[in-house]
């Protein structure tokens, strides 16, 4: 599964008005994508279901960009497969 594509889908689901082309790795969730802390909880739930994993709350708290979400997921996927 392409992590970036799934993150993009989850972000667009949380913010249906989102312009997909704005979803790039460096995009700031709040300032560029209008994804607030409540949206992020929803995004995390979606991604947990998609990847069948648990995203630790303390790691999600420090997330600022799309790339940060991808990093957290990739790290958890490694733990899972390792």
């Amino acid at each position, binding site marked *: 599964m392409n992590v970036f594509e799934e993150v993009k889908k989850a972000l667009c689901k949380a913010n*249906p008005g989102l312009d997909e082309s704005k979803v790039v790795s460096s995009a700031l969730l709040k300032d560029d994508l*209008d994804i607030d802390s409540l949206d992020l909880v929803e995004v995390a739930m979606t991604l947990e279901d998609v990847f069948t994993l648990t995203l630790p709350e303390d790691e999600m708290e420090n997330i600022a960009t799309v790339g940060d979400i991808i990093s957290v997921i990739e790290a958890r996927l490694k733990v899972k497969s390792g």
Partner: protein
Amino acid sequence: MANRVVVTGYGAVTPLGLNVEDTWRNLIAGVSGVGYISLFDATDFKVKIAAEVRGFDPADYLDPTTARRNDRFAQFALVAGIQAIDAAGLKVDDANRYDIGVLIGSGVGGLNALAEQLDILKTRGPNRVSPFLVPMMIADSASSQVSIKMGIRGANFGLISACATGTDALGVAYKMIKWGEIKAMVAGGADGAVTPVGFAGFTQAGALSRNNEPQKASRPFDMERDGFVVGEGAAVLVLENLDYARSRGASIIAEVIGYGATSDAFHITQPMESGEAAARAIELALAGVERDEVDYINAHGTSTPLNDASETKAIKKAFGDRAYKIPISSAKSMLGHMMGAAGAIEAIVCCKVINEGIIPPTVNLEHPDPECDLDYVPNVARDGDVRIAISNSFGFGGHNSVIAIGRYDGQ
């Protein structure tokens, strides 16, 4: 010193239209907004009818994110609130944003979101409950969303008194302006609770009409009435200090001239049979004016056996022999019971009656009840020259709330 308070704009989303003008046109034509339930599968329900808002697509008014983050009642409130502010020509800017407040009450709040997330809690566990449950469920979200959308920074809160909510919201807003706490209030009510659990609750409480002929079920003051019909929607008015309205050149629709509220202190669902406390609320609303100038009463008129009889007694207590000469009508005969929005739409109806000189009818009044022997304007609208109109609203819990609206004299 007391300020005069005027209505400068209104908006509504109702079972008879997605704005005030369509709603009014249908009301004076005697059209019923009641039909079979479409919002959920009512096959197993004893009651299969409601007055739903039809043809409402939030995407027509709200961006997709705002629409998704608001329960149905708050979507209605946003649309009606924006309509009202637009109609009032009230431009919110840095010069006035702290002088304007919002008070849009709701009887039950976001019951749809609550019911949906309770299912998720049971089937998928606590970690899948939406972070938007609380912001969508809280009844004050109707006011807050309008405040956020319009940049209004004065007082912002909700208020709850069951089916009297809309009238109490207007009454409290009126008092805040009257006593100089704020210059303008965006006030009214909203509910959108045609949802299985809410519906089941009302049915089990014995409050709803079992008449399964939709257009005939809401029949206030009729001998064969057997309960109310659940409605939904929102109605919002802009109330303003007269001086402020004049200073910004607003056109003035009508004047709010009084508000009264009392409690039955009797029973959580039944009204006090004698109508004594309700009569007192009418008297309080008319404390500062000549009672003889009341030319129209918009009844609470729910179509329950108890309400319509006790309301009739209350009107007789408050007006004496003159009660027989005042035209009375129940908008609920056509709109169903819009719950927390009822009092607000009915206040708008009072404004329209005063300005248009037409009194909407009480439809389905075919078999007069000897206990309800006043002039309820049966079935057909009529012309009427109305100086002062009052709107009665009563609610589960024993609330009796009355607002008085007068013709604006231009001075």
